[in-house]
């Protein structure tokens, strides 16, 4: 049986069969090892093969089962645009898109995202072909140190897509999960308003 959650059988630690779950392992879609019990005191095997779809491309990595999506994106896939700020869901620097919704990559396990479409700042644009939101951030000087900027931009794009950018107050509320230590907030809001208005013009003209 092949499966995404199959562990490397060469590693020690797994172990005797679980009477309670052995019978349902196939039905669960689990690798043989995953449905086994650890021997008390033995470390549970933690290295797993993970397949992720990131910015439209399928990527295979080997990572610790405990790895956050953030750590796999940065350390394994070398997509370092997504930043690690607090690593605890407070700052928003790791904001990415999962199936079109913005999420915090630090508060979710990579292994649970193998059926998802993941989008990062690298998939949005590049210096030669910037996304309209990236261009607006440059135009409005919406950053100083830049560390929170990828997360800000990912949130900003989602903010407009979900229709939560109608007023300055709404933008501020729906961007409140992205902290900027340099306090570029007024410029960030201005950049979002700019893109929102340009989108409205485009819709009107087409």
């Amino acid at each position, binding site marked *: 049986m092949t499966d995404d959650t199959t562990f490397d059988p060469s590693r020690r630690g797994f172990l005797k069969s*679980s009477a309670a*779950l052995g019978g349902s392992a196939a039905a669960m879609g689990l690798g043989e090892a995953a449905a086994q019990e*650890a021997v008390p005191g033995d470390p549970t095997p933690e290295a797993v093969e993970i397949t992720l779809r990131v910015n439209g491309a399928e990527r295979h990595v080997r990572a610790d089962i405990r790895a956050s999506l953030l750590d796999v994106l940065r350390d394994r896939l070398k997509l370092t645009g997504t930043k690690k700020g607090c*690593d605890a869901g407070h700052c928003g620097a790791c904001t990415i898109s999962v199936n079109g919704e913005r*999420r915090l990559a630090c508060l979710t*396990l990579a292994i649970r995202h193998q059926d998802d479409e993941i989008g990062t700042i690298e998939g949005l644009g590049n210096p030669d072909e910037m996304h309209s939101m990236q261009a607006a951030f440059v135009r409005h000087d919406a950053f100083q140190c830049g560390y929170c900027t990828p997360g800000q931009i990912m949130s900003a794009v989602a903010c407009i897509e979900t229709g939560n950018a109608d007023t300055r107050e709404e933008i501020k509320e729906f961007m*409140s999960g992205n902290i900027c230590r340099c306090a570029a907030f007024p410029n960030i809001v201005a950049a979002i308003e700019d893109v929102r208005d340009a989108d409205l013009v485009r819709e009107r003209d087409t």
Partner: protein
Amino acid sequence: MRPYQLLRPRSVEMAVEMMAAHLEAQYIAGGTNQIDMMKAGIHRPSHLVDIAGLGLDRISDQGDVIRLGALASNTVLATDPLVLEHVPMVSQTVLEGATQQIRNAATTAGNILQRNRCPYFYVPGTRCNRKNPGSGCDAIGGFDRLNAIFGTSESCIAVMPSDLAIALRAYDARVRVIGPDGMRTIPFADFHRPPGDTPEVETDLRKSELILSVDVPKAGRLASAYHKIRERRSYAFALLSVGGAARLTDGRIAELRLAAGGVGTVPWRLPQVESALIDEAPSQEAFQRAAALSRDGAVIGRQNAFKLPMLERAIVRVLTDITET
């Protein structure tokens, strides 16, 4: 973080079986608070039973109640038309509860199961009876500005931090669960447990039980409001909050539901304030007189006495909002 094995049940029954088979297994769904707790070393599951794909995410009209699927995201709770029409305080509380990134991941059941935010619970090296039963409580007599004044005990003063839970407490919701012994329904008033001598037991859930839905009686004819006071305008836990819903008949209050957050070890209903206002005509004097009754049973710490007058004023504010005609 302790290594774990990830289990993927194909049905609710299989999920319960998997949990029952492993003493130290935990369910995982949205995972926002769960991962946080695992990183902090407070949760150390041997197995994670991943329930995200079990189809418990629907919101439906069940006649007398709106059924909120255990795994409906907080974003869906905040925007669903059935919620907005029949139980709007659910939306109001969820919108005040977190950021959009977290609401997209967090679920109904995860929200009401979230752990407390007492700093002594999080920080390593502190005495905390929830973290290490019997070790003591450093919050009592310590930095207790954010801690509870109602429902406390000598073992714990941590606040139950969910905003959503305040709406569910006011609406008298019911929690439907399934476990090894079958299904049962828990009145929301009994779902969260005051700490007493066993603060580590936070809810009425038994080992392996899984929440299926939260059923909320329809309250669409009641005007509702949720007023949350916090250190900054957005994305912070409540210093204090009040949720209320009311219905007037012939200029008098015929039905009133009030609950407060940020003050109790459990979502704190205010029955004495409610009953003082039934059949009364709305007025600032009546509101202030009734709100003063909210102090009953308060136990004040070093730094949280401010919550008593703040609570009264928040109650008056909410009463004013929901009885305006």
